[in-house]
């Protein structure tokens, strides 16, 4: 089953339904599929939570995943884990499921479209000032742009934009390149070798989901903690 042709660079170009101004393309449909699996799966599992000695195997899975993400977030943020955990955990789970479902024939990862990854990166772009301002106030957050001296202001602004672009293009490039490589390998060396590459693709998908979530957390942490670290240093110098 071939959903996306080899010369189509993004699943946005696969239009399933056109109705006036509304266009339903493959990216949208598969994003809804992933969202549905996440939402209804979590609802089904958390409906029968137990605190007893025996827990169901699905609850066990969810507990492992949630506590794993929590500990990773705690390692970077050190405090306020509950504040950052919903955003970072959602990033990780959504991207992970998007990438892992690629072993199902006919499925095209929504993350192999630049629109999905750009949307996720824009969320990070706005989440960083949101958490920064809510943590240390508007004035202190804006002062961060003029550290160490005011000449650095344009570089800070440029850095904000370039890292958003990097976040989007990194995820898109990795997943899209993998799909194209498998498509090309199917023509050159069919049957066995593409299967090995598919297995490698699962690893790449996992690592990319991890990296996206960790980088988002690092950016947020740098906006909320930079001032504290600077204050710490000056206090040390004084002492």
């Amino acid at each position, binding site marked *: 089953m071939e959903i996306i042709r080899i*010369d*189509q*660079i993004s699943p946005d170009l696969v239009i399933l339904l056109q109705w006036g101004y509304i266009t339903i393309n493959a990216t949208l449909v598969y994003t809804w599929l992933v969202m549905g699996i996440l939402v209804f799966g979590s609802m089904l599992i958390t409906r029968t939570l137990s605190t007893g000695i025996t827990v169901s195997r699905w609850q066990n899975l969810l507990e492992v995943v949630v506590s794993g993400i929590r500990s*990773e977030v705690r*390692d970077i943020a050190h405090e306020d884990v509950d504040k950052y955990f919903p955003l970072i955990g959602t990033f990780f789970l959504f991207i992970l499921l998007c990438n892992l479902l690629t072993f199902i024939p006919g499925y095209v990862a929504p993350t192999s479209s630049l629109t999905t990854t750009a949307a996720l990166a824009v969320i990070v772009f706005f989440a960083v000032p949101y958490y920064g301002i809510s943590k240390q106030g508007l004035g202190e957050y804006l002062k961060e742009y003029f550290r160490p001296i005011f000449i650095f202001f344009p570089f800070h602004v440029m850095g904000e934009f370039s890292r958003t672009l*990097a976040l989007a*293009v*990194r995820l*898109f*490039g*990795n997943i*899209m*390149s993998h799909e*194209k490589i498998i498509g090309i390998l199917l023509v050159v060396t069919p049957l066995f070798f593409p299967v090995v590459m598919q297995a490698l693709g699962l690893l790449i998908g996992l*690592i990319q989901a*991890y*990296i996206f979530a*960790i*980088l988002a957390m*690092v950016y947020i942490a740098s906006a909320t903690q930079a001032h504290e670290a600077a204050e710490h240093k000056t206090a040390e110098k004084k002492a």
Partner: protein
Amino acid sequence: MDSMSIVAMASIIAAGFCMGIGALGPGLGQGRAVQGALHSIAQQPDERNSLTRTLFVGLAMIESIAIYCFVISMILVFANPFWGYVIKKAGG
């Protein structure tokens, strides 16, 4: 040689060079990064978790340069913006 084949040839050659040279630098850089991380882990195995996390974040940063090159060469081969112009010229 008409302008269409010049555009096709130039974009294919440029895509090849872009990928080849663009993979060279990040390859060397990632090698050095992994070397440094392995060295550090061998010296201090207790700090393995934070070293591995920093390594992955750093590798992702280095790798994104190679990914830019890849995206550029994919655009040159599959979604070349100059094709539309050339085809319109040839047609009209």
